[in-house]
């Protein structure tokens, strides 16, 4: 087991290095520097700025310096916001995105598991068709469709929630639903599928024969074994929720990292883009590894493979 964990963690290094390298060179070799768009700068000023940020050095030297600083945890300055470093910006915006992401994930897991279990208990009846129909709707209504529609109905129409912002607790409701809905839908389909596979097994029949309560049979015996596909979906789901936050934070005007990334992309604030991508990649890649390790613990067969 320890060997498995170690190997999985070692694999993180090349993945991260490849991502960082691709992004670094893509961003640096892009036509037009970060200061060329600003007409207010004179040629002299641009030269000084380039010198100040080390952009006049050969690209390999810049790359080396960047990696060295990265090892120290320093993501460098932001071009757009000269007084703040990329680290500061992440420190400010990440808690907001984290809250949104965690709430959306909890929402997706709770609704998804409940709907999936409900559907699997009476397959091909109304109790199955209604949640699965809703799940299909969830999958076919991406966040950028669902979000504006929710604002239109519950924000502007009924006036139950603010149309945008992130101040009072009720501001969390619409963004969390928008971000979590599609994942709730996938999770419910996965749960239903694997519940249906596990329910006919002999050991479930045994559990029932022993006279265990139905709740006990479903939650302790069936769900525990039916959960594997859901756990392995958590890796891609986290990556999806991260990128989904770009859209949701933009729609609801939430001061998080996702909106920051979209703004940085528009402003061509290259150091900020680079820093945020490094941070995003770290999150995605580490979380994928955690999910893999979790799966290895749940299912020893996976550890033996490869």
């Amino acid at each position: 087991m320890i060997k498995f964990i170690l190997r999985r963690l070692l694999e993180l290094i090349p993945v991260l290095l490849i991502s960082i390298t691709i992004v670094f060179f893509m961003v640096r070799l892009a036509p037009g520097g970060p200061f060329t768009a600003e007409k207010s700068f004179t040629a002299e000023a641009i030269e000084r700025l380039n010198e100040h940020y080390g952009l006049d050095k050969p690209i390999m030297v810049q790359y080396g310096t960047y990696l060295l600083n990265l090892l120290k945890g320093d993501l460098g300055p932001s071009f757009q916001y000269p007084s703040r470093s990329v680290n500061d910006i992440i420190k400010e915006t990440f808690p907001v995105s984290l809250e949104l992401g965690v709430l959306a994930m909890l929402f997706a897991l709770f609704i998804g598991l409940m709907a999936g279990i409900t559907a699997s208990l009476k397959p091909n009846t109304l109790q199955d068709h209604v949640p699965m129909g809703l799940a299909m709707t969830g999958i076919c209504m991406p966040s950028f469709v669902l979000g504006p529609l929710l604002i239109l109905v519950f924000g502007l129409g009924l006036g139950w929630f603010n149309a945008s912002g992130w101040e009072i607790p009720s501001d969390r409701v619409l963004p969390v639903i928008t971000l979590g809905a599609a994942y709730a839908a996938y999770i419910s389909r996965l749960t239903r599928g694997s519940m249906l596979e596990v329910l006919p097994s002999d050991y479930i029949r045994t559990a029932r024969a022993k006279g265990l309560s139905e709740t006990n049979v479903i939650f302790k015996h069936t769900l525990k074994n039916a959960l594997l596909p859901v756990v392995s979906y958590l890796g891609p789901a986290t990556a999806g929720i991260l990128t989904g936050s770009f859209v949701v934070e933009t729609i609801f005007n939430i001061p998080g990292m996702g909106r920051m990334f979209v703004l940085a992309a528009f402003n061509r604030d290259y150091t900020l883009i680079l820093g945020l991508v490094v941070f995003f990649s770290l999150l995605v890649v580490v979380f994928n590894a955690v999910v893999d390790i979790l799966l290895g613990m749940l299912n020893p067969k996976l550890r033996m493979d490869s």
Partner: protein
Amino acid sequence: MSSNPQKNSLWADSWKQLRKNHAAIAGLVILTILITASIIAPWLTPYSFEEQNLALGASSPSLDHWLGTDTLGRDLFTRLLYGGRTSFMVAFCATMVALLIGVPYGAISGYAGGKVDSIMMRIVDILYTMPFTILVIILMVVFGRNILLMFGAIGAISWLVMARIIRGQVLALRQQAFVESAIAIGASRPRIIFKHIIPNVLGIIIVYTTLTIPHVMLMETFLSFLGLGIQPPMSSWGLLIKDGASVMETYPWLLISPAIAFSLTLFSMNFLGDGLRDALDPRFSKGRS
């Protein structure tokens, strides 16, 4: 026709099974209508997708403009049709890129087996953990919002699942008698892979192509919604939803019709994909409702 009854009956069986699936058939019909409408768009509407009528501005649906006009006075029905063109075209091209990389990659990996296979699949595993959506966004930011680049970039990240599935199928097929006899006759490796094995995984390829297309469309719409994909005055459903969302307080119809068009397409594709999977993928044909 009668020379090969075995083959025909397999496809006929699948078609029979698919026909019984009403949701899938409804999806097929809706998709056919939407795709045809977007292809013959110039003959369906008297307006052009970039023709502005500032005097008119945003008007609600009327006899002249069935779905109304946007804030620049452009006919929404026309822009919806042309947006469909863009979205379907991106979906088609990017999926082709995914097929062209994924199928040969998976087939070669599965057929070669052993060390080659494990290295090739390791590469897929590692690529799979990379945050590709973010990389595509950067690509669009850095190299400009080029539509060809978008096909390539989206396609390049969509082939991984396809490669894995094809590899699994080929691995199983490799052991079968017809492959052994092909080897015995002395057929070359590329010939065996492309002439004997790939035709046998055609069903699976069709199934996973229909399941890849909605993902690809979603990606394009996602990028366009963020303003990083298709650029105006060109039209795309993501762009229309974005424009609609920005003025939904005053002109809600500008949001509603593109939202319906896009969701309807995703619905149809998912139902059709599920139906095809039930009909064509032997692993799913039994025990599923």
